[in-house]
């Protein structure tokens, strides 16, 4: 089984703060991490390999420093790592990102592709399903459990708002996974040592045979027009008085708004 796990190096958005005076993001000292959902994707890949045999390749598209995320993946026991990096990819939206990743996957070959359900910086959840469409293979999103892995098909549980669906798919298939699927392992000391020395394969736009017009800003149908700070609430009332008085004014306020 050829398993490819796509990961993204992201700023730890929980650490990002806004400068209230300038309305801009404070990025200083914000650490880069592997997108938390992708850790579950890596764990899923490793577990499938342990059960069904084969190899796990980790793939990321990003600037040269994304190599760190790949080394961290290698320390978990992933067999090989590929960095898809090229200035031509800069400014890619989800469409152009998915296109480039799909071309890379085509280049390396895969039976099962696993992604985290979304990245915590963009939160779009679009790149996984878009990769599947570019590769013309099925995908199953929000996988919370893997029931069966066969030679030519697999059965998984897909998390829905009201429960879950049991879905069967032919292979190759792309899965996007949620946290409930597993608990990611910690790197071993041996893994860490090996990861330091491991070779990381680098691919460029030319290597994967990507069409230039589909890459980066040029290949991105969407553009960010502007960014702005979320508006603070203007109608806030901090209640005062004894606790009983506060509760009374709250009940009164809610009654006036026809909420009770």
């Amino acid at each position, binding site marked *: 089984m050829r398993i490819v796990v796509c990961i993204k190096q992201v700023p730890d958005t929980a650490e990002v703060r806004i400068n209230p005076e300038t309305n801009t993001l404070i990025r200083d000292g914000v650490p880069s991490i592997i997108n938390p959902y992708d850790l579950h994707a890596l764990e899923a890949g490793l577990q499938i390999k342990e059960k069904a045999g084969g190899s796990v390749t980790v793939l990321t598209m990003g600037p040269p420093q994304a190599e760190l995320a790949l080394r961290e993946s290698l320390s978990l026991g992933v067999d090989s790592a590929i960095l898809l990096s090229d200035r031509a990819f800069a400014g890619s939206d989800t469409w152009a990102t998915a296109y480039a990743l799909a071309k890379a996957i085509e280049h390396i070959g895969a039976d099962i592709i696993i992604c985290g359900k979304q990245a915590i910086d963009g939160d779009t959840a679009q790149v996984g399903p878009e990769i599947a469409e570019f590769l013309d293979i099925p995908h199953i999103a929000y996988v919370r459990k893997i029931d069966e892995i066969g030679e030519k098909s697999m059965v998984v549980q897909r998390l829905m708002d009201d429960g879950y669906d049991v879905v069967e*798919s032919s292979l190759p298939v792309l899965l996007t996974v949620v946290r409930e699927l597993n608990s990611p392992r910690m790197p071993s000391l041996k893994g860490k040592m090996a990861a330091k020395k491991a070779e990381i394969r680098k691919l460029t736009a030319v290597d994967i045979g990507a069409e230039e017009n589909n890459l980066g800003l040029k290949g991105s149908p969407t553009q960010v027009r502007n960014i*702005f700070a979320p508006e603070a609430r203007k109608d806030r009332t901090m209640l005062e008085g004894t606790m009983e008085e506060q509760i009374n004014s709250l009940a009164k306020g809610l009654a006036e708004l026809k909420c009770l």
Partner: protein
Amino acid sequence: MFIRVNKEKCTGCETCVMSCPYDAIAMKEGKAAITELCQMCRACISVCPEGAILEIEEESDKKEKGQGRGVWVFAEQRDNTIANVSFELIGAGRRLAEMLGTDISAVLFGATESHADELIKWGADRVYLCTDELVKNFNDEPYSRLLSDLITEHRPEIVLAGATPIGRSFIPRVAARLKTGLTADCTALEVDVETKNLLQVRPAFGGNIMATIVCPHTRPQMATVRPRVMKRGEYDAARKGEIVKVSAANIQSRTRVIDSVKEVSEAAINLQEANIIVAGGRGVGGDKGFALLHELAEALGGSIGASRAAVDEGWIPYRHQVGQTGKTVSPKIYFACGISGAVQHLVGMQSSDIIIAINKNAEAPIFNVATYGIVGDVFEVLPLLTKKIKEVKGL
């Protein structure tokens, strides 16, 4: 299009460097320079005190758009019930259609004509209805294929869908297939009067900042919209519309839904549909505290929510989690009890109509988004509040 710095005007003040959320401005020889990390967000243009940063349009920016017409809404159903978000989208879509001087159609898979009729009464001018067995249950491949084919045939200007597990799973395939832009999880939609482009507003950077996204050169412009953010339109039982039957006869699927299992927890039927949510965080302290939350929720007829901190502590299952890594909710009333208000939580609930924050710490960021704030211990406040609510409701 690209951004350029006029080196003669640049004084090297670095204001733009600070303003750039993408870290895409470097200082070279005392002047600002835009690097390849630039995402064209234009934040720097407005902050430059010298007016030295310019937006340059290229020839290739003037590509021809397809001749799109009409606003479309994907109306999702599950178990023969149309999701609420579908009616909200018709309300939002109708407003956009009026601004653009066009009409609005809904696309409905796996339901019946009476469902289609319901969509018309809620404001759709036309419903494309597929009643084939293949699309009865949600399945990504047939859904994305059928919707793509319909879009290719009828060329709508705008396509909206709910940012639900269904919409977020198959709509990206449609956008990939049609080579057009898709903006996820929009919280507001407007039309640029000049260009007629759809302005799609969504939280970015984990909800730390809002971004307006446009899709200027390709059609349709596609967006998924968070449930409970848009308002429903007017229901008119007399409204007439057209129902167009479509067939999925030529569509294959490589995935098959074997079973659909419902997992409904006691209080939270479905957080996203709840009118009132009583949510607890670290300040609730554990099971005893959550019992107080349950009492209040029961008195109000509400559901229970939680912050990531409370879920991580194991006080309540993940399905109750509200926030960036949990559910996005927008109830009429949201009680945030002992929740400090980390950004990760705020993005999941700040579009609630009324937010009541109860926290010991008067400086907690949750009070910034609150309609009503009570500084106090949840163990003191909640029992009093529950008692009062019961009194008012005559329970």
